[in-house]
């Protein structure tokens, strides 16, 4: 029969009640009739069912030249138990209760810790349990319910109001609002229409939609989030290296201290063998390094699971530790601070001609500004012409052969070789002061017009940056845009410092420059060209709307494309790391204070620890560390509900 720890605890506890009664009655000079025999029988049963597993584990470990907490529990209980048997037959006082109570308390600690550990790791299975069980897939003109694991990419799936979205996909029919809070942490429902993407396990509230599955199984966003959090929960924080080192030598060191305690009390201080033994046993029992070992993993587990619920995915423990040292946060501008959907606001010069040339040349470009120009041309019904010899000039713009003439579109860096009229220059300055990006359009070596494009900041950016500054962080904006435009946006949202005119491949270099000044830098970005900067920064924070590459290089991923996520990410990382430090501190303090008291160092002031009390203290220390980690679920985080 295999008993669980909690069953063992209850059996042992009930068996130890007679000894408890005797202990309480001792001050009244009452002796239980036949106490020694009762204690011998009950303790023997307790040892057989509850202490024996520790003994056998300790012996197996000992054979492998290793020692652990079981070694300490086994040594402590075995010494007290076998000495008591010896004492009983030689008519000396017995200490069965020490062996019994230590076992009971250790079991209680183990059982409670197990329960709390389960609680802490439950969050993740809850996340996975959010998934729908089946999906209504279109087959031969009819929607048929099929189990989730049979849904394939390309399937058309219908979701009715109140149902869960089964997998990731793109809406092909219908409009609805979705509750995406379980994935993004955002409690406001989001309106979705044809062409919008939907995420599996979010809840459809009022409309019926049909969507095409784009990601199924392990590729879905939820599956990837769960995978990421799993890895984070089992990861190491560098601060743990200390405990790893300690744990290797800890137990043998405690055994040595216990032997020294016995030797010193017995040989030098003239204590009786029994007194010396009780001190030594207390040392062994109190010194369990459990609390030390549990301090980091449990806090990591709770912290990363909680942050995942808020749409902040922390990759590992190392990131948490880095966050606590940050003093600077660098933002990419486009798509991070701003909406990332630039729009043409002004055109200077012959409107139709300028737009026609710009759109024709930019049609082949992938730049976000190009998209804005082409959209404008479409809206104005301007036909583009096919161009030849298209060429991108890195960081400057593009050029191509347009009707036999060289046309070019780009930033002011193009102006190095091309003349511009004073009037055009004034126009450009004016537009830039309004936080608009100016694109120069030229034909045959002459600037013929300007296109002003504006990308407005996200509504939440200003608040997020204010909150970061309140936390004493310096905010920096890094952008390829013109200085004036960048300044205008920076002052709108409250950014401290602007580094403008940065070529895409220079972003990482600027991060290094900040680091060279001794700053600890976090970089927030989303694009492919942000990947090097994300990995260079001490902490890379990838925005959720970003590409896969950006997400891979970030240490923290924000599911939601909102800068307030940065504040949350930093808050929860800091809180989790502080909790780890607090846990380690208490675990260490407990041992550094507990061992000397148990060894009888403070006998002079009347402070001693019996083996039973030592066992209780040890159980309490493990449970309190796990409990402290669980409290992370309750701490206040910016923007959390």
């Amino acid at each position, binding site marked *: 029969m*295999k008993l669980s*720890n909690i069953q063992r605890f209850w059996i042992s506890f009930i068996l130890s009640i007679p000894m408890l009664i005797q202990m309480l009655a001792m001050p009244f000079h009452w002796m239980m009739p036949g106490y020694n025999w009762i204690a011998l029988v009950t303790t023997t049963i307790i040892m057989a069912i509850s202490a024996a*597993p*520790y003994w*056998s*584990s*300790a*012996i*197996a*470990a*000992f*054979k*492998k*030249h*290793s*020692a*652990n*907490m*079981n070694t300490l529990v086994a040594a402590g209980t075995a010494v007290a138990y076998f000495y008591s048997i010896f004492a009983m037959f030689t008519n000396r006082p017995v200490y069965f209760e020490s062996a019994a109570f230590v076992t009971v308390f250790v079991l209680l600690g*183990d*059982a409670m*810790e*197990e329960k709390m*550990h389960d609680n802490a*790791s439950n969050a993740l299975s809850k996340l996975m349990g959010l998934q729908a069980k089946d999906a209504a897939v279109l087959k031969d003109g009819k929607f048929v319910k099929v189990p989730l694991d049979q849904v394939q990419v390309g399937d058309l799936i219908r979701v009715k109001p109140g149902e869960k979205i089964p997998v990731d996909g793109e809406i092909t029919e219908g409009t609805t609002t979705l509750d995406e809070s379980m994935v993004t942490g955002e409690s406001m429902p989001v309106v979705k229409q044809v062409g919008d993407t939907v995420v599996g396990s979010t809840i459809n509230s009022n409309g019926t939609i049909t969507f095409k599955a784009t990601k199924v199984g392990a590729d879905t966003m939820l599956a990837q989030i769960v*995978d990421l959090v*799993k*890895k*984070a*929960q*089992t*990861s*190491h924080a560098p601060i*743990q290296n200390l*405990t*790893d080192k300690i*744990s290797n*030598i800890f*137990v*043998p060191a405690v*055994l*040595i201290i216990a*032997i*020294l305690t*016995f*030797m010193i009390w*017995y*040989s*030098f201080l003239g204590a009786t063998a029994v007194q010396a033994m009780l001190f030594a046993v207390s040392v062994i029992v109190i010194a369990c*390094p*459990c609390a030390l*070992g*549990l301090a980091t*993993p449990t806090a990591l587990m709770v912290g990363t699971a909680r942050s995942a619920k808020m749409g902040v995915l922390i990759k590992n423990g190392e990131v948490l530790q880095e966050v606590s040292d940050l003093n600077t946060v660098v933002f990419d501008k486009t798509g991070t601070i701003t909406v990332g959907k630039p729009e043409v606001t002004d055109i200077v010069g012959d409107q139709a001609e300028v737009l026609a040339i710009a759109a024709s040349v930019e049609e082949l470009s992938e730049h976000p500004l190009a998209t804005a120009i082409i959209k404008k041309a479409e809206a104005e019904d301007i036909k583009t012409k096919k161009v030849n010899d298209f060429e991108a000039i890195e960081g400057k713009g593009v050029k191509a052969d347009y009707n036999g003439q060289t046309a070019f579109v780009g930033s002011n860096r193009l102006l190095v070789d091309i003349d511009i009229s004073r009037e055009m220059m004034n126009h450009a300055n004016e537009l830039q002061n309004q936080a608009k990006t100016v694109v120069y359009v030229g034909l045959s070596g002459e600037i013929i017009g300007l296109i002003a494009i504006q990308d407005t900041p996200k509504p939440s950016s200003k608040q997020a940056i204010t909150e970061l500054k309140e936390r004493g962080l310096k905010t920096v904006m890094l952008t390829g845009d013109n200085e004036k435009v960048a300044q205008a946006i920076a002052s709108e949202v409250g950014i401290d410092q602007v580094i403008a005119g940065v070529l895409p491949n220079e972003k990482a270099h600027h991060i290094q420059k900040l680091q060279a000044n001794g700053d600890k830098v976090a970089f927030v970005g989303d694009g492919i060209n942000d990947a090097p900067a994300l990995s260079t920064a001490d902490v890379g924070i990838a925005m959720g709307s970003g590409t896969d590459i950006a997400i891979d290089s970030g240490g923290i991923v924000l599911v939601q494309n909102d800068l307030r996520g940065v504040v949350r990410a930093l808050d929860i990382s800091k809180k989790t790391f502080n909790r780890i430090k607090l846990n380690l501190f208490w675990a260490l303090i407990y041992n550094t204070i507990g061992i000397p008291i148990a060894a009888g160092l403070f006998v002079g002031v009347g402070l001693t620890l019996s083996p039973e009390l030592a066992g209780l203290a040890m159980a309490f220390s493990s449970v309190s560390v796990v409990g402290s980690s669980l409290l992370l679920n309750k701490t206040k985080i910016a923007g959390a509900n």
Partner: protein
Amino acid sequence: MNTSQIITLIVGLIAIGFIVWWFFGKHKEAVGQSTVVNDEQSARIVVKGGYSPSTVVLKKGVPAEVNFDMQDSTACLSHVVFEQLGVNEDLTKQKVTTVKIPTDKAATYNFACGMDMFHGKVIVK
């Protein structure tokens, strides 16, 4: 100092010496190999007061699983954690717990108990 005190002192010092030698001295560790059946390899690790063997070598390119046979009933070894793989398994829920190991490339995967007291590794080569 009487005789028994002197004897205690000597025995204590010998015990300390033994502990230092036994736990901190260099000792050889057993290395386990996997067995290949039907193009799948598996290795067994017995969990009792530690991991035996604590090092397992797997062949690259053959689908592999490591079976943890739980024979220890204390809380200490109740979980096994593969940090790099994001695996954290409770070994007490069933007798033998299977962990799948990716063998597409040569690598060393460390594992440890839930409190990071016991260590072992799986080497793919």
